[in-house]
Structures are given as C-alpha cells and as structure tokens.
C-alpha cells in the first residue's frame, strides 16, 4: 500500500521546513564569519553584505595560535582512540569468546560505567588527578592533573564501556567453530584474538573508531575540568578561552568555531556511514 499523494506532499513540506531550520544556524554562522565586524556592527547580522572576506578566519587562526590547539587535540585523540579500541577489543574477546565465568557481571560493570553522567565522578576524580604524580617528561606539572596523559586516560576509561558492549555483542555473532578450529591447530589465546578475531571485527572497529574520534575530539567537559592552563587544552575546549579572548568580535569567534569544526566536518562528509553504523551498533544487538 503506497502512502497517499496528499500525505506524501505533507511529508515533503514538513521535511523541507525542517531542512531549512536545521541548516539555518550553520549557514548563518558561516555568513557572519565571512563579514567584517565593522559592517555587522553597523547593520546587524541580518543585512546584505558589502564585502565578504576570509579575514576573520585568518585572524582567528593566527591571533589565537589555533594550530597549537589542534595539535593538542591530535596528541589526545589519536592515542585515546587506539588505546580504547585495543583494550576494549581484548576485554570483549575474553568475555564473549571464552567461557568466562564472570562475563555478564563484568560486562554490566563496564556498560554501567559508560552511562554515568561525567559529573557524578568528577569531584573525586579531580582530587585523584591532583594526587597522582607523573614524571616530568610526561607532565610539566608533575601531576596527572593538567597533563595530556591524564586526559587520554579518562577518555579511554570513559569510552571503554560502550566499546566493550558493542564489540562483545559483535564477537558473539562470530561462529564458535572459529576458535575451536584454531585451538585444534594449537593457536594460543593471543593468536586467536589478534590474528583471527580482530580482522573479522574490522567493520565494527572502523565504525567505533569514527565514533570515538568524533566524541573524544568533541569532548569539552574533561578538558575544562582536568586541564587548568589554556595552552594545554584541545581545540574544542579552547573555544571557551577564545570566546573570552575575542569577546568584542563575535564574527571572529564564529570563524574560530567553524575552523574547529573542520575535522568533524571531514568525518561528516567522508565517514558519515561509519559514524551512523557505530551508533546503530550500540543500539541494536548483534
């Protein structure tokens, strides 16, 4: 039964209206960022452009040392994503592929940990980070607090639960004969995990990598609370500093925010399928 023509037309109208509503904030920000502050101060943002320039982007980039913040994001995101996937997949392998007695209890522990609001644990975590010493080559402050490593660790710990949940569900769908055959051939646990199971999990790993990269790159809360100095902050949380720095020039803040969005926009254009697959893996079993 085909939907009636009337309801199709209504659906189209509704979706077009939503499309416009959804695009407006982004397009409007781009428009403001492309206009000189002098012009918008005089005529407001809603006015025809006298000139469109990239000056705000250039100024935001150079005056705020954005390159530096991008590097911070890179130093934190890449190790955090790789570590999370490695640790989560090894843990998931044991609880889902070996008949391990405590597997359900452990899965519950990890999954629940991922669902806690960050603010539940931040107060003791903050004190914990101030109490754990690190060698100076790892952290200038000599503490877990205000170090790249500290931020990597909390991102890994916080994302582990979701990845363990997804990967163990995924691994459960692989045939049991896989391990059995490898055991007959004398393969040890490590070989079966690393050489046999992981390659078969490639679709799930790719989806999770995309999701984790976006989430960790977009993280704001951990960086705001566990990094005190502005110059150590990754770019997403550094936006809060830039907002203070450029307080008189909203156009430049918009430009800085859009520059900071470029990595996620690349993921959006190139890896949208992977991202959606990752979200869907977490919500449907198997």
């Amino acid at each position: 039964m085909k939907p009636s023509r009337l309801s199709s037309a209504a659906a189209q109208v509704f979706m077009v209206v939503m499309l416009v509503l959804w695009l407006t904030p982004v397009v409007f920000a781009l428009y403001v960022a492309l206009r000189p502050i002098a012009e918008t101060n005089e005529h407001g943002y809603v006015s025809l452009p006298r000139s469109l320039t990239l000056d705000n982007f250039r100024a935001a980039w150079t005056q705020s040392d954005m390159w530096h913040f991008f590097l911070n994001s890179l130093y934190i995101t890449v190790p955090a994503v790789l570590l999370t996937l490695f640790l989560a997949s090894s843990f998931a392998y044991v609880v889902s592929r070996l008949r391990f007695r405590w597997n359900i209890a452990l899965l519950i522990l990890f999954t629940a940990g991922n669902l806690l609001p960050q603010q539940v644990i931040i107060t003791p975590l903050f004190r914990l980070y101030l109490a754990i010493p690190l060698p100076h080559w790892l952290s200038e402050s000599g503490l877990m607090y205000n170090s790249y490593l500290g931020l990597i660790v909390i991102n890994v710990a916080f994302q582990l639960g979701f990845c363990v949940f997804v990967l163990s569900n995924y691994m459960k769908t692989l045939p049991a004969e896989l391990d059995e055959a490898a055991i007959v051939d004398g393969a040890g646990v490590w070989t079966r995990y690393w050489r046999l199971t992981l390659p078969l999990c490639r679709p799930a790993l790719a989806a999770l990598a995309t999701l984790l990269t976006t989430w960790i790159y977009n993280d704001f809360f951990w960086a705001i609370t566990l990094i005190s100095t502005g110059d150590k902050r990754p770019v997403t949380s550094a936006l809060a500093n830039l907002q203070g720095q450029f307080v008189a020039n909203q156009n430049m803040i918009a430009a800085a925010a859009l520059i900071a969005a470029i990595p996620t926009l690349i993921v959006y254009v190139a890896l949208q399928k992977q991202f959606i697959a990752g979200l869907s893996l977490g919500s449907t079993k198997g």
Partner: protein
Amino acid sequence: MSVSRFNRRDGLVVAAMLGVPLIIDAAFIWLPALASVGLSFTKWTGVGGVQLKSCDSLPSVPGIPQPGCLNGVDNYSQAFTTYPDFWPAVQHNIIWLLVFAGFATPLGMLFAVVIDRGIRGSRIYQSVLFLPVMLSLALIGIIWELIYSPNYGLINSVIGRTADDNLIDWLGDPSLNLWALLVEASWRQAGYVMILYLAGLKAVDPALREAAQIDGATGWQTFWRVIFPAMRPINIVVMVVTVIESLRAFDLVYITSGGNPLKGLELLSVAVTQNIVGETQRIGFGSTLGVILLAISLVPITIFLYQAFRREESPK
C-alpha cells in the same frame, strides 16, 4: 573450554587482557564513583587530608583551613534547604528532561519514520538533520549565540526587536534562557534519536508491516500497534539516551554563560562543577551533589542493563 585448561602463557595473556581494562575502569570510573559517596559525608576544602573525626571536634580557627572531617548528613540537608541553586537546578533538569522526552525525542522519531518511508530526497534530509550530532556542543553554543544575539541576531532582527529599549535578551533573561538553550539542545538531540530509530526501523521484520496492512490497519495503527512495540530494545536505548543526556547537560550552559553561574541556567551538573573549579573548593559538598545525580541516573541505567542483559542470564 574453561579458564583452568589454559596453559601458563594463555593464562597470563587472558589475565592481562582482562586485567588492564578492568584496572583502568575501576580506578578512574568506579573508585571515584564510590569515593564520591564517602566524600559526600565530609567537609573538605581540599587542603590537608581527610580525618575520620567529626567536624565539631576539630578546632575551627578563622583564616586557617580545616582539614577534611566527617560532617554527617549536613551536606545533604544543606543541599535540600539552604543551597540556593539546588531546587532551581532540579527544576531545570526536570524541564530539560520533559522537553527532550516530549519534544526532541518524538521529533527525532518522526524524522526517522518519514525518512524510512523512502520519500524523495530522504538521503539529503537524513544527512542534514544528522549534521548537528557531529558537532561539539561547544560549537553549537557558539553558533546559536549569533541567532540569539540581542542587537544583531537573526531572531531579533526578523521580529524587529534590536533597539536597546525593546530588545529581547534570549540568553540573558532568566525566564527565557533555559528555553533558548533547549531549542539548541533539541536541534542536536532530534538528529541523534533519528539515527537510532532509523536503525531500529530497518531491523523490524517487513513481514510484520505487510501482515498488518493486509489486516486493514491504517499507517498510524500499523506504526503504534505493530512497529513501535517491535522496536522495544531501541525504545529502551532511546529512553536511556534521553534521560542521561538531560542529566549530563553541561557544555551548552558553560559556553553560553562563559563559565560563570548564570541565573536561569542552574543545572545539577553545573552545580557539581562549580564546587571544584571555583576559588574555594568544596569537595564534600560537590560530592554530595554528585551522589544525588548518581542516585537519579541509576534508575535509567538499571532499566537499560536489565533490558540488555536479561536474556543472557537465562541458559541458552
């Protein structure tokens, strides 16, 4: 195959594969979660250690910070009675949840249903509606400030309220700013829910829909009586996401208020954070607010875990 039949090397490998993630999770998630319960009964500025003595028994000298001490349930009674941000924060978190549950989530579901019907242009609609999910909340807060800007912004320009004597301060006015932020948050949340439901709708057996239609059910009836109940696992996930995201709401408020408390935007998550990032640390009281947040969030978490692991407890 049981653990005992592993050889020595396999045993060590398994121990490491389990142990390392477990230690990280325990040390940085569960230890702080449990510690916040303990600390919630103390008074501690972060100076000196925490002593297991009642605060009343310690001398209190003005100007010298007390070490941490046991404070009983004082923090809790203080939160419920004298702390001015507490009840506004609870109220705002509830409003946040109601708007998500009553508006953003149904809207996302509607998007999914319309797109799933395969109307023309559905791929473009999906891509655009999903865009905000990719963006950080910090970025979302910043770009919406341009929409809400009192003197220059889109909304005030369109409705002609940009003059200093008649402008609407969407983000500053305590009776408006929560709602303004909820529009931003819903803009993102609806796309998130849409993606989850699109996955759910694809997983529903098409035969169900056909059978319902052969029986003469209308589209509306088919959805609510057949498709929606069949998506039970997704419904639970969406419910959990809706509740947890409402409790986690923080980034938008922080960006909008520039990190300072802003009247009208009190939230539990913001209150917790203010007790550690401010000049004076109130570790005990911050933990108390954290525990209250924990107690609330355990409800949806338990429901989700029950749903997700119920089937596995029973023997296969």
